[in-house]
């Protein structure tokens, strides 16, 4: 597609429920990144997929967080047993070789 697409744009969930966030990157972008951004804060790196290489999971905050990517296409970020501190905007980005990212509009997750 023309840009990075994320869905849903907003998600309100009850504490303890699982959520799944979706990212559809730009076609041909081999790299895909997930970040978390709390209100007024910077970007917190979560996970990075590059082609067929093993993903860099070093930013995942706990084992409740996981992500998958099918080839060089769609990625899903799953948060199990959500907690209130998981509330944030989850941003996805994709890039080509030069590392310049194109970001999606994000998913605003609210855990109540």
């Amino acid at each position, binding site marked *: 597609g023309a840009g990075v697409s994320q869905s849903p744009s907003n998600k309100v969930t009850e504490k303890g429920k699982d959520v799944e966030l979706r990212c559809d990157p730009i076609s041909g972008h081999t*790299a895909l*990144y997930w970040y978390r951004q709390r209100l007024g*804060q*910077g*970007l917190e*790196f979560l996970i*990075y997929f*590059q082609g067929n*290489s*093993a993903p*860099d999971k070093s930013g995942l905050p706990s084992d409740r967080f996981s992500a998958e990517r099918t080839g060089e296409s769609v990625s899903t970020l799953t948060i199990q047993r959500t907690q209130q501190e998981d509330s944030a905007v989850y*941003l996805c*980005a994709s890039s080509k070789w*030069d*590392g*310049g*990212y*194109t*970001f*999606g*509009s*994000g998913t605003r997750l609210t855990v109540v």
Partner: protein
Amino acid sequence: AQSVAQPEDQVNVAEGNPLTVKCTYSVSGNPYLFWYVQYPNRGLQFLLKYITGDNLVKGSYGFEAEFNKSQTSFHLKKPSALVSDSALYFCAVRDALLGGNNRKLIWGLGTSLAVNP
């Protein structure tokens, strides 16, 4: 190790005055440098990048940045600020020599720019 610093949490400037948002970096090899902007309640948008070539890079919305290798800086500038430029600005860097899982960008913490009418 790669790192990037944005030494100012907030920059205030009057409309019509020039603005500068500072960024310094540290990489082992040659840097790829980027500026992104985030308007309130919006996603991050690419402003400009330095990969190679001219040290002065021109980007979107009248912004420019100057790559200074000796000072390891990549400050963002605009000759005349607009109220609509008020946003959060992020600098990012990666080492051009690194590949694989080291290719991800290293991000600054962001600088909040407030342009006063």
